[in-house]
C-alpha cells in the first residue's frame, strides 16, 4: 500500500477496506545487503557462490585475481595470491589444484575447468614488481617465536607471525630455506629462482634465520625456555620402508625422498646410471612430487638406453598425478604399470638385478570411501629387470624432536600438551601438499598469536559491495566457449633435466584463460518484494539457474539447503536464482523490468577486530539501496 499523502482521501478509502496480505518471508543469502557480514550464513553462501575458493585449502580469492589478470593488472593478481597462498609462483607450477575440481566451468561441460593454477603462474610471470614483503598488521609486540623448519608451513607461519608483530627466528636443518619445495620437487618443474624470490620476500620482512641448525630434543627444550612460543614444522622426513623378500635392508633400494634430494642438490653425476633399468614403486599422494618427478629425473640419468618404469598398485584414477601429467610421462617414455604389487626382489653378486611383481585385481564391491579395494592374484608373478629401485610409498613424521611428555592435542593438531609448543604443516597432519601446508602455517600463526596476546586479534568476514553496472561483469557469453590453449612445453629434445619444462602462457593465452572464468564473485539475487513473477529472467536464463520455486528449505543458519521447484505460476512462491547454477552472465538483471535483480560483489576479507566493528556500523539493511523508479 502506498504512503503517498497526496493521494488522500482516496488512500484512506482504500485503506478502510483493510486489505492486508500475508506473504512468505523473503530469503536472503547474506546477512546484510551491503557492508560486511560474518554470520555463519554469510560464509555458507560464499562457499556456495565461489566453489573454487571453497575448495582451496588456503581459501585463495581465485575469481578476484583472475579478473585482475583479465583486466591486465598482473601485479594486483599476484598480490592477492601472495596474501592468500604465500608462494604463488611455486603453487602456480606445482599445486595439486583442488580448486579446478571445484570450478563451476567443470560442471557446465564447456572444455573443462578454468586452468586456475596456470593463471596463478601467469600472474607471477607477468608481474612488473618483484615479490616484496607484505605490510605488518600490528605494531611490534616484543614477543619472540621460534619456528623450527623452513618449509612451506614454517615460512608461512613465520611471515604471518611477523605481520602480527612478533619477532620470529627460523631454524633450518638444511643449507637453504624452502623445505620440500627445494628438496622434493624437481628443478625442471620448479626453478629454484622462483622459490628463492618468494622466500626472500618473507625473510626481508625482518625474520631471523639460522641455517644448518638441526634441532634435537635438548635444543628444543632450550628454545622453549628462551622463546615465548615454539612452532614445530619439520615436516615428514622419514620415508616409509618397503620390506621385500630377497631385498637386503639397505643400499639396494633408495627412498624417493632421498633420490629427489640428491638430484635437486646436484650431487648425482650425469650419466652415472646410463643404460640402467629403474623401477619406481608408488603413485599415491605422498609420492605426487616424488614418484612422478623422480621418474622424470631418473630418465635423465639413465639416458635413452635405460628404462624407467613406474609401478602402482592401484589404478590410474587413484594416482595423485592428473591425467594430462600421466600422458606427458608417456611422451617422455616413462612406462606406467598400474595394478602391480611388489612381490620379491632378486640380488645377484650383491647387486639388485630384478624385482618380481604380482598383478592386482579390483574387487567388485566398492567400499563407502569410494576408493576401490585391490587384492593380488596368485601365480601372476613376473620379474622385471631392475638396477635401481626407488620406493616412494609414503613419508611419516618422527616425533622425537618433541620434549619428553609433550604430545599432540588430539582435538586441535596445532596445539600440544605444552602451552608454548605448536605444530604445523606435514608435521601436524602427515604428508600432504604445499597449499595445505600454507594454510596450516597460517592457522598455526593465528593460534600462536591468540595464545600470546590472549584474544583473537583478526577477524574474517565477507565484504559485500553493490555494483551499478547493469549486470555487466566485463565478460560476454562468448567468453565461455573459448578453447583453452594448452600450456606450451619445452620440446622433448631440449629437456635436459634442469630447464623448466612448462614454459608458461603468452599474454594472449593467459587472457583466454582469464576470461573463461565466470568471475563468480559477482552475486545475482532477486528481491522477492520487487519481483512481479513475469518470468522474463527465466526465459533469458542460459541454464537451469532461475526457477519458479514453491518452497525453500532452510538450515539452522537460514541458509537455503534445497528448493522445491515447480512449473506452475500459481504454485510459485518465489522466482529464485540458484547461485550454484548461475554463470554470472547478467542477462536476468538486464531483462528484469522491475529492477528486482541486483548484482553485488563479494570478497572474503580479513582485518583487525576493531576495524571490523567499525565497518559493521556502516552496514545497510537488506534492500535499502534505492532503485531507479518513477
Amino acid at each position, binding site marked *: *500500500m502506498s504512503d503517498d499523502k497526496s493521494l488522500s482521501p*482516496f488512500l484512506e478509502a482504500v485503506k478502510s477496506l483493510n486489505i492486508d496480505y*500475508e*506473504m512468505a518471508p523473503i530469503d536472503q543469502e547474506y546477512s546484510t545487503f551491503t557492508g560486511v557480514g560474518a554470520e555463519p550464513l554469510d560464509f555458507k553462501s560464499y562457499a556456495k557462490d565461489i566453489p573454487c575458493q571453497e575448495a582451496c585449502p588456503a581459501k585463495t580469492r581465485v575469481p578476484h585475481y583472475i579478473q585482475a589478470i583479465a583486466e591486465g593488472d598482473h601485479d594486483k593478481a599476484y598480490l592477492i595470491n601472495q596474501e592468500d597462498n604465500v608462494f604463488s609462483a611455486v603453487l602456480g607450477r606445482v599445486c595439486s589444484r583442488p580448486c579446478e575440481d571445484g570450478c563451476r566451468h567443470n560442471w557446465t561441460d564447456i572444455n573443462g575447468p578454468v586452468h586456475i593454477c596456470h593463471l596463478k603462474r601467469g600472474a607471477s610471470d607477468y608481474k612488473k614488481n618483484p615479490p616484496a614483503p607484505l605490510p605488518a598488521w600490528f605494531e611490534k609486540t616484543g614477543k619472540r617465536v621460534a619456528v623450527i623448519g623452513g618449509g612451506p608451513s614454517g615460512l608461512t607461519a613465520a611471515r604471518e607471525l611477523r605481520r602480527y608483530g612478533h619477532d620470529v627466528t627460523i631454524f633450518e636443518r638444511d643449507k637453504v630455506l624452502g623445505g620440500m619445495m627445494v628438496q622434493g620437487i624437481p628443478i625442471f618443474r620448479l626453478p629454484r629462482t622462483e622459490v628463492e624470490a618468494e622466500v626472500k620476500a618473507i625473510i626481508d620482512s625482518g625474520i631471523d634465520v639460522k641455517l644448518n641448525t638441526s634441532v634435537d630434543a635438548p635444543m628444543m627444550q632450550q628454545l622453549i625456555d628462551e622463546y615465548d612460543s615454539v612452532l614445530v614444522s619439520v615436516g615428514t622426513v622419514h620415508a616409509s620402508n618397503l620390506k621385500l623378500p630377497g631385498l637386503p635392508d639397505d643400499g639396494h633400494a633408495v627412498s624417493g625422498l632421498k633420490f629427489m634430494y640428491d638430484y635437486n642438490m646436484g650431487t648425482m653425476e650425469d650419466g652415472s646410471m646410463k643404460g640402467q633399468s629403474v623401477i619406481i614403486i608408488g603413485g599415491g599422494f605422498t609420492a605426487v612430487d616424488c614418484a612422478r618427478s623422480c621418474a622424470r629425473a631418473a630418465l635423465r640419468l639413465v639416458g635413452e638406453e635405460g628404462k624407467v618404469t613406474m609401478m602402482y598398485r592401484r589404478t590410474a584414477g587413484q594416482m595423485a598425478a592428473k591425467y594430462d601429467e600421466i600422458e606427458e610421462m608417456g611422451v617422455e617414455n616413462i612406462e606406467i604399470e598400474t595394478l602391480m604389487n611388489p612381490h620379491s626382489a632378486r640380488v645377484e653378486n650383491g647387486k639388485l638385478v630384478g624385482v618380481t611383481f604380482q598383478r592386482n585385481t579390483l574387487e567388485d564391491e566398492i567400499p563407502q570411501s569410494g576408493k576401490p579395494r585391490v587384492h593380488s592374484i596368485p601365480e601372476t608373478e613376473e620379474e622385471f629387470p631392475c638396477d635401481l629401485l626407488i620406493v616412494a610409498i609414503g613419508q611419516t613424521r618422527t616425533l622425537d624432536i618433541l620434549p619428553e611428555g609433550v604430545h599432540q592435542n588430539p582435538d586441535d593438531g596445532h596445539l600440544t600438551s605444552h602451552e608454548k609448543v605448536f605444530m604445523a604443516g606435514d608435521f601436524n597432519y602427515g604428508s600432504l601438499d604445499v597449499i595445505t601446508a600454507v594454510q596450516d602455517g597460517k592457522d598455526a600463526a593465528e593460534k600462536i598469536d591468540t595464545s600470546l596476546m590472549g584474544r583473537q586479534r583478526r577477524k574474517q568476514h565477507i565484504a559485500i559491495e553493490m555494483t551499478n553496472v547493469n549486470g555487466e561483469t566485463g565478460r560476454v557469453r562468448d567468453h565461455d566457449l573459448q578453447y583453452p590453449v594448452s600450456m606450451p612445453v619445452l620440446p622433448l629434445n631440449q629437456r635436459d633435466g634442469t630447464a623448466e619444462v612448462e614454459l608458461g602462457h603468452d599474454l594472449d593465452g593467459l587472457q583466454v584463460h582469464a*576470461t573463461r572464468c565466470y568471475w563468480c564473485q559477482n552475486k545475482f539475487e532477486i528481491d522477492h518484494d520487487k519481483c512481479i513473477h513475469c518470468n522474463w529472467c527465466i526465459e533469458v536464463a542460459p541454464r537451469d539457474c532461475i526457477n519458479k520455486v514453491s518452497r525453500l528449505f532452510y538450515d539452522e543458519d537460514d541458509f537455503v539447503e534445497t528448493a522445491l521447484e515447480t512449473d506452475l505460476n500459481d504454485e510459485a512462491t518465489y522466482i529464485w536464482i540458484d547461485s550454484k547454477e548461475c554463470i554470472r552472465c547478467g542477462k536476468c538483471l538486464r531483462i528484469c*523490468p522491475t529492477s528486482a535483480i541486483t548484482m553485488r560483489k563479494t570478497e572474503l576479507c580479513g582485518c583487525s577486530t576493531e576495524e571490523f566493528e567499525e565497518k559493521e556500523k556502516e552496514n545497510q539493511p537488506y534492500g535499502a539501496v534505492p532503485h531507479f523508479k518513477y
Partner: protein
Amino acid sequence: MQWNLDKRVVSEEEHTKDHGLVIDYDEVGRKGALGGGEKLITKWYGIYQSRHPGNHMARVVIPGGVVSSVQARRIAQVGEDYGQGKLCITTRQCIQFHWLKAPALADMLRDLAKDNLSCFHGCGDVTRNVVACPLAETCQYRRIDVLPYAKQTSRVLTESRDLDNLPRKFKINFSGCGAGCGQPFINCIGAIAVLRKTDSGDEETGFKVVIGGGMGWEAFIGQELFSFVPADKIVAVNRAIALLFRDHGDRRDRTQSRLKFIVHKKGIDFCRKVVLDFLEKENVDTSDLETVLVDDVGDAYPDRPLLEPNPVGTDGKATVRAMIPKGEMTHLQIRQLAALTEKYGDKRLQFTQRQNVEIHGVKPEKVAEVNEEIAKIGFETEGFFGIRDIVPCVGTTYCPKAVTETRVLYDLLMPVVSKTKYNEIWDKALINITGCPNSCSPYRIVDIGFRGMRIREKLGSVEAYEMRIGGEHNRLGKVIGEFKREDCPRVVEAILDTFLKERKDGETLAQCVQRLGVAKAEQPVAV
C-alpha cells in the same frame, strides 16, 4: 573466435541484426517454424511469436488508423482464413491477428498486400506505426489536419533504409491540438499541432515537437524539443530525430536503449544540437525552428474532446463509434462495419487508441440509424472514452510477455463501473489494464491504471495488479497500492465512491486527485 574484454560493444540482439534483416517466409513455411535469429528478425515484418507454441501474431501497420472499406474487408478475409476469425485492435491503431501458423505466414502477407496493407515494420527496432488522433481530419478543435503528415512521416521513415536498424523501437504520434487525444507525451516523438501569429500578423500552423516520452518500467513524459516547427518541415525533423536515436541509442542494453533514455541521460539540449546538425547535413533550413515559447492562438479546446458523442466535424459530417469490448472483433463484425461505412460513411474505418472503431463522414440525420445498425452487430455506441471504455492489453491470452490475464480483470470491473450510481461520472474517468510493465495499454496516463504482477502468498502466488490513480495524458499517475485481482473491484469501487463524494464542478478523477493532493503533487508539464 577469441574475445578480449573490451570488445563488448553491443547486445546479442545487435549481433543477430548485423547478420541481416531479411526473411523468406516461403522458406519458413517449408521449414514449418521460425528458427534461431529469425525469431528476432521476423519482428521487422510485424510478426511475433505467440504465447501458444506454434502460433504467431501479425500486426498490420495502419498509419493514423485509417483503412478503406476494401482494406477492412481484406483484414476480415485474412482473419477468417488464417487467424481463426479473430482480430484485435491495438492501442496504437493497428490490427493484430493471432493464431497464425508458420506455413501460412507467406500467404497471409501476400493476401494483405493485395489491398496495399502491410505488416512491414509492425514490430522490430524501427519506426512503428505512426499514430494520429482519431478525429485528425475533421475535429473542430484541430489546428491542422495531421493525418497527411502522419502518413507522409510513416512513408518516408519506413522507406529510409538507413533507419532499418535502430537501437530499439521508435514511436511517433501526431495530435491535432494540445488536448492530447493522440497521447503525444508518451511517444518517442509527439507532434502537437499549434497555430501561431507571425510577426506580420498572419496565422501560421506548425507543430510543437516533444520527444523522449515513453511508458514501460521507467516511464517518462516527453520534453519539448522545438516549440514550433513549420508544418512542411515536420517530416524532415522526424527523420532527424530518428537519426539521433539511431546514432546515440544504447546498443549494449536493450532495456536502456529507447529514445527516452537518451533524452533523460544526455539532456534535451544535446538532442536538439544533434537534430539540428542532422537537419543541416540534409540541407534543411533550420532558421525557422523555434525553441522559445510560442502562443497557441487557436480555439480553446476541452480537456477531453473525444467525449463528445457523435461529434460533427468541420465538414458538417458526424462520427459514429462502435465500442469494441477488449478490442477484439470477429471477421464477420468487421465486414459488417465495412458494409456500414460503405452505406453511410466515407467508406473508411478508423481504429482508435482505445481499441474502438469509428465511422466518419456520416450525415448527422443518419447517425441514429447507423447507431442502430451497430447495435445489431453487437457493439455499444455510447460511453466511448468513458468509464466503461476499459482498455486491456491482450494479456496472457496471447502475449508471451504478459504476467496476468487482463481480460479477466476487465470482466470483473465491468459490473462495477456499470453501476447506476456511476452514471453521473461516466465520462470522468478512464481505466486501462496492462498485463506487464511494458504498458501496451498505457496505465500510467489514465485516471485508474492497473499493471499486472503476481503477489506471493504463504505458499504459491496469485495474479495481482499495481494500481495507479490520477494520470492524465501529460502526467503520470501515482501508485496507490498492489492488490490481488479479486480485490481490485472493491478497490475501484472505493475510489469511485470517494470521487463521487469529493468531486467539484465537472472535474475528472485525475483532476480531483490532483486538486486534493496539490500541495504535494508535482505540477503538470505545460502544454
